[in-house]
């Protein structure tokens, strides 16, 4: 009986099942089913987290065969944290989406099935311990994301979706090539089997595979200069989709970079490669923030903010590679904390932006006057999310920044300190660019209508979660430590 209630397989099968059922139910149906099922998934993740904290990392051998013949699922602290993030973001967004598509029906027909597959892909990816299986989850994730971008139709979204699709296919192609080389070198694709083999002997093929897989993931994570596809895709999709993509989808590929870097390819990492990743991250922070500041459309601003925030994630690599273990631990904790905090805050920010666009009827920062007076909770949520992105305390973003700053100062890499501080100030500049507009009264000729309450409250719940993460980050870090990933 206990086998039957194991949360691990259910976390993948449940969203697959409800996504398919939503498709069978018919166009636009399945929202309530999705919300109930995601809530259940949330409980399953909490149960899993409890199991990990009590008994350490867990392996689930699918089919009972075990690696290398079968495929293993691995739930360690890092995976559990990402699973927690995914369900925590998805539940309020599902509630938000129901309200959003009631007000803005364009694109609602097949939103739920695609979202179900998206979540199944995310959960499967976080739990997978098999390189080829990860390839399949990557494709499931990529196609779901591309489909969601194009869901509302129109020339700009379709163009963005195609660009995104080509980028993501090239990325998974590089991954598959890497898998082929690894299988050719070692005869297995299981992470657990491969790790000691790579450590013992790494032929040119393994190094080449590592480089290819890393490059493919960077393309999918939209790290500067591979960010070209992200702003139109995230900025052009319906708000709940933008939120899901910015909060979760790019985090999934970042998670893989982190796992490969810290575990499988750890013997191959060099300081130079780590510094290169850091430099790309720094460039993303500065370039993305500057472009965010230059936007006139609200959702494009938030999308470029994602380009910038992705940069922070990659600062962890120079801070965690070949440095004293204390600093490395702090850096990894900071990077993961940033992933979680940005996920919650960016979902809140896109959700709030979507409400503002519904209320004002247009996507224009210059015409936001009156939002402060008519949608105070939404604006407040946007502000709270902004606080997290700026890295002001108390918030998850601050905790992340604190951990990264500590690692930077401890390892004497002060140049990353300067980048992080400059990035925080630039973030403040573009967040306040929106806030100050929204405080102004309604411009003559414009109207601000009310939006459903569920839109306001779901965005607020996400923003509040990002803030509370800053006050209660310690349990999350305890969970992260399970299994020694950090």
């Amino acid at each position, binding site marked *: 009986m206990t*086998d039957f209630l194991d949360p691990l397989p259910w976390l993948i099968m449940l969203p697959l099942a409800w996504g398919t059922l939503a498709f069978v139910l018919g166009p636009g149906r399945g929202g309530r089913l999705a919300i109930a099922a995601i809530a259940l998934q949330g409980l399953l993740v909490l149960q899993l987290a409890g199991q990990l904290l009590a008994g350490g990392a867990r392996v689930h051998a699918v089919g009972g065969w075990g690696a290398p013949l079968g495929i293993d699922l691995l739930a360690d602290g890092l995976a559990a944290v990402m699973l927690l993030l995914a369900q925590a973001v998805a539940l309020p967004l599902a509630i938000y989406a129901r309200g959003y598509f009631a007000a803005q029906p364009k694109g609602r027909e097949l939103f739920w099935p695609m979202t179900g597959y998206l979540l199944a892909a995310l959960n499967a990816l976080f739990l997978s311990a098999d390189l080829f299986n990860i390839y399949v989850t990557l494709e499931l994730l990529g196609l779901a994301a591309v489909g969601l971008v194009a869901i509302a139709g129109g020339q700009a979204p379709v163009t963005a979706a195609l660009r995104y699709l080509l980028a993501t296919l090239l990325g998974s192609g590089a991954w598959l090539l890497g898998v082929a080389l690894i299988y050719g070198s070692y005869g297995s694709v299981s992470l657990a089997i491969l790790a000691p083999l790579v450590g013992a002997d790494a032929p040119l093929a393994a190094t080449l595979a590592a480089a290819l897989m890393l490059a493919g993931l960077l393309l999918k994570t939209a790290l500067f200069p591979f960010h070209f596809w992200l702003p139109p895709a995230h900025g052009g999709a319906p708000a709940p989709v933008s939120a899901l993509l910015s909060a979760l989808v790019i985090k999934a590929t970042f998670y893989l970079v982190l796992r490969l870097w810290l575990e499988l390819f750890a013997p191959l990492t060099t300081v130079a490669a780590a510094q290169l990743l850091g430099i790309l991250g720094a460039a993303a922070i500065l370039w993305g923030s500057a472009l965010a500041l230059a936007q006139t459309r609200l959702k494009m601003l938030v999308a470029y903010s994602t380009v910038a925030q992705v940069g922070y994630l990659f600062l962890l690599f120079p801070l965690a590679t070949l440095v004293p273990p204390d600093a490395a631990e702090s850096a990894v904790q900071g990077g993961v904390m940033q992933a979680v905090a940005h996920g919650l805050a960016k979902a809140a920010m896109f959700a709030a932006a979507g409400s503002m666009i519904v209320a004002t009827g247009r996507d224009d920062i210059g015409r936001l006057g009156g939002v402060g007076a008519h949608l105070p909770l939404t604006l407040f949520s946007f502000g709270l999310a902004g606080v997290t992105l700026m890295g002001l305390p108390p918030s998850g973003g601050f905790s992340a920044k604190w951990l990264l700053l500590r690692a930077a100062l401890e390892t004497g890499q002060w140049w990353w300190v300067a980048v992080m501080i400059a990035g925080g100030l630039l973030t403040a500049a573009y967040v306040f660019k929106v806030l100050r507009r929204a405080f102004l009264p309604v411009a003559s000729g414009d109207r601000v209508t009310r939006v459903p309450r569920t839109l306001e409250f779901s965005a607020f719940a996400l923003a509040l979660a990002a803030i509370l993460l800053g006050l209660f980050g310690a349990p999350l870090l305890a969970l992260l430590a399970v299994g020694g990933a950090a």
Partner: protein
Amino acid sequence: MSRAVAALVVLLAAGLAAALGLAMLDLPEPAVRLPARVAAKLGDSGVDHPVTAVLLNFRAYDTLLEVAVLLLALVGVLALARPHAARAAAPAHPLLQTLARLVAPLMVLVAGYLLWIGAHAPGGAFQAGAVLAAAGVLLRLAGLLPAWAQPGLLLRGGLALGLLVFVAVAVAVLGQGSLLQYPPAAAGGLILLIEAGLTLSIGLTLAGLYLAGTEVEP
């Protein structure tokens, strides 16, 4: 795009090919030998053909996700298809129509054979589904099937059946200890059940990718 950039890209691609070639010429002996392990466990897999055993037992979880990818692609194509796409095709040449009427039942029969033989020889649900889909495309070209932008409940059920059966079997055997862990005695039957569902759904899905994607001219 400037010539310089193009030259750079070509250089990059050639460099990649060279690096791949070099790496492949300098490979160590693999430390793990999976073929031997597959052969050793083939008897417990419920089928005789090693590729089918990998696809539907040892690495059945990959296949499960792959079926989801296929259905998802159809969902994406349907999301793009607009209602005006659902038009009856222009009637085709009578000869083609007659031929299609004759061949289609035969193709269904072939599909059934491929499904059955998959347990022992090359074949299985994907090959069978592909043949079914080809029958659908042929009927469509002959003007005997309408394009569908908005499949009805029955059709949606058929599209989803394979994945739903697969998921149901996967979790139904959780009591054995893990996902997709078939009881050894029932393995062959369960695999056939899954493959039967998959054949129908894959056939419909592959046909749907064509049928939903055509005839979009306004």
